[in-house]
């Protein structure tokens, strides 16, 4: 990444609830809100914090598969529905599987860097409970190479990460790995319970790690993962504004209420190729490295990380890919509580994908909102302490099986 030509900020974040099994409001038999509802709520949530739509120059919508989940494409053109003030302004939708939200942020950042906009409204949205999980698995499999779908598992992506987990078990020991994954699950749910919008907010299970250690059942699901190792099916949207300094001023947002974007990495790998090594998330490693290098910091300076834990094993492998633990030691690192909210490096402080929810196209934006909340002291019950000597946060948003990754480094404003 070249040195940034302008200062870039994010502020005015907003999350809808993540709706799906686990939320008390969720009833699969009753008609639920659609894309329009989520886009409106998240979009208007941001617009209300920037002094109105007149202060927004462009919009970007991150979405993965509305064309199949909702039989609806062309989401960019929904923005004037969100607010009439966005009529005749630029708006596009971007797609990169579960990294679509991250790509929306990247697109917004680049518009501001290009100087063609001072404020970009970035939304991420997905409404997935329109079909049963077994058909949703078909739709989400589109994040992989379709030529491999036939040979894949019925639950395609859980199958992919089950293979990764299996490889990890045989290379580094199953028991320690399962313990680390169980702790990851516990952290996710405990953080989510504190967050009003989280899908697992209402979770009351007492022994979370015991639940997470339920033996996988390959007859009905995958060989190496149980359902607690997986993020759930979610409906939800998140929004945040990307600003230049002028944009912030125009919106009347104080610097203290914004975070600065100090580096990003955006890496993709060949979707037609199998992972070079199942126990390593190579693209996350590369994108993370790019972002940290661009920001000119090391992982020791990070106060918190939002890591793409579509599966508990992805959390463990992500911890290793970013360098918090050596290859094969991620499970023990997590099991020791290092990534818990009071640990060495708190991760996914509002629950992550497993606890907060995973409306696929919205997740990347949700991550940014959480980091913005944490670094500006707006995280409510989820607030962790941000040390003065570690004023940075990072998001890692992954699409497919480690194929598209967006990594962004955020800094608390002075």
């Amino acid at each position, binding site marked *: 990444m070249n040195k940034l030509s302008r200062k870039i900020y994010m502020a005015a974040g907003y999350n809808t609830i993540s709706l799906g099994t686990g939320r008390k409001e969720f009833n699969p038999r009753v008609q639920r809100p659609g894309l329009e509802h989520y886009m409106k709520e998240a979009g208007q949530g941001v617009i209300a914090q920037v002094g109105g739509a007149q202060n927004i120059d462009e919009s970007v919508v991150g979405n993965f598969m509305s064309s199949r989940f909702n039989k609806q494409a062309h989401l960019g053109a929904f923005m004037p529905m969100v607010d009439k003030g966005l009529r005749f302004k630029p708006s596009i939708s971007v797609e990169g599987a579960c990294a679509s939200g991250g790509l929306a942020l990247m697109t917004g950042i680049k518009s501001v860097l290009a100087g063609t906009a001072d404020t970009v409204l970035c939304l991420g949205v997905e409404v997935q409970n329109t079909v049963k999980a*077994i058909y949703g698995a*078909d739709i989400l499999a589109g994040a992989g190479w379709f030529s491999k*779908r*036939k040979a894949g598992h019925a639950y395609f992506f859980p199958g992919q990460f089950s293979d990764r987990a299996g490889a990890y078990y045989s290379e580094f020991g199953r028991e320690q790995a399962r313990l680390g994954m169980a702790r990851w699950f516990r952290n996710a749910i405990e953080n989510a319970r504190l967050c009003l919008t989280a899908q697992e907010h209402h979770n009351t299970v007492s022994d979370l790690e015991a639940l997470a250690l339920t033996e996988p059942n390959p007859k009905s699901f995958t060989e190496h993962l149980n359902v607690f190792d997986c993020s759930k099916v979610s409906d939800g949207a998140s929004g945040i504004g990307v600003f230049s300094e002028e944009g912030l001023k125009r919106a009347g947002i104080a610097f203290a209420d914004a975070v600065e974007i100090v580096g990003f990495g955006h890496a993709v790998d060949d979707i037609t190729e199998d992972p070079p090594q199942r126990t390593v998330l190579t693209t996350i490693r590369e994108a993370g490295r790019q972002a940290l290098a661009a920001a000119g910091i090391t992982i020791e300076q990070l106060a918190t990380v939002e890591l793409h834990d579509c599966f508990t094993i992805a959390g463990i492998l992500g911890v290793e890919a970013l360098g918090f633990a050596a290859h094969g030691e991620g499970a023990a690192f997590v099991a020791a509580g290092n990534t818990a909210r009071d640990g060495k490096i708190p991760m996914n402080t509002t629950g992550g994908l497993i606890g907060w929810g995973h409306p696929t196209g919205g997740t990347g934006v949700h991550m940014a909102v959480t980091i913005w909340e944490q670094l500006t002291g707006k995280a409510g019950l989820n607030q962790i302490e941000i040390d003065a000597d570690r004023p940075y946060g990072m998001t890692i948003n992954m699409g497919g099986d480690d194929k598209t990754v967006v990594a962004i480094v955020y800094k608390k404003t002075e």
Partner: protein
Amino acid sequence: MEYTQRIQKVSVLGAAGKMGSGILLLTAIEMADQMLKPENKGKSFVLNAIDTSDEGLSGLLKYLRSQVLKAAEKKVVALRKVYADKAALIENSDIIDAYVLDVMSVVRTTTRIEAAYDSAIIFEAVSENQALKEKLFRLINENSTSKPWFFTNTSSVPIGGLNKNANLEGRILGFHFYNPPAIQKLVELITIRENPVEMVEFARKYASNLRKTVVPSNDIAGFIGNGHFMRDALFGISEAEKLVPNMPLYEAIYCIDRVTRDFLSRPMGIFQLIDYVGLDVVQFILRVMQPHMQGEKLHNSLLDELVLSGVKGGQFSDGSQKDGFLKYEKGKPVSVIDPLTGNYVDIATFRDAADQWLGSIPSEILPWKALVKVVEKTTILKPAFKALQVSTTKGTALAVTYALNSGSIARKLVSDGVAQSESDVNTVLLTGFFHAYGPINDYL
């Protein structure tokens, strides 16, 4: 004839009925699963769905399609392997659609009994009418090209009599599914001495492929399930009648229904269960059983009167409950019949008084829903029954009497030779009636 060969040609009689449609569904899936095995490629499988009602058969196909779809969705992990060699079937939805089509392709609906003449297996699920069953068996047996095996779903008619009267040479056994067959795990298997060994082996293998729990019952009218339920129901009605000096009969029905449900942690009160099965069905089964039970009165006048006046219970085709002893809203009882007037009386008008008369439920008693989730039920049930015993309210006294009577009925089924063991009786109540504990226990 091997299992596969035998199951290639099957007919279900009464296929559009409540039990018949479930049996048809399970058999269609089993036949399709056999058909899809590589070693059975090219073999034809035919399942005749025979019923007198054209309308019923058309509804049956809709039901079948929707249920097979659900079954396919549940086992898609395995189905992907079954269809691994079909390159065009890629997504789960492709595979599920293909499976639904394959299962449906096995089924032929018809109103003509002649279709059964080519079948090697006949499942019979027509109404509990012995003469009708015998007539159909005789007709098929006399016209059949092979010597078919007859599997009857009767819940009460002795198999030996059917065998003799229809001249089936031992080629009939009782294969009694519980309602609804697709959900209930239990099958009562009633064999007779004359059954060929391979026929019983087939029945056990078929049940095991359907993932059913088989409980053997001897060939005594009512078998185990109805042997317990009929007597339990008669006792419930008589207990309510006994309360009449204290309260109107409708209130007494409410009280006994509540005691049998809430005080004894059962899924339904006894009157709700009678309604669920159907008052007419209960009356019919009692009539079938009575001639075989000398010295025992299996009859209740109130039941006869209600059936005569058209109060029959049972379910509508959408599964909702028809009015019986109780009237329901959203599946919950809201009023009780007053047999004197034939009108239903709102429970709300007397609930407080009746509940007060019964007294409170000891806190040790868990509702059925909570109890079934407990793994070590004994730790809950022992103190719960102890609490029932030491309590001095009218409700707990009724509950204790009722539980003791249920235990006696169950033990008598063993001593009369209907059931082969106490645990078989308990299994029937646990799996066929969803009770949380068996009637034979040492809690009291």
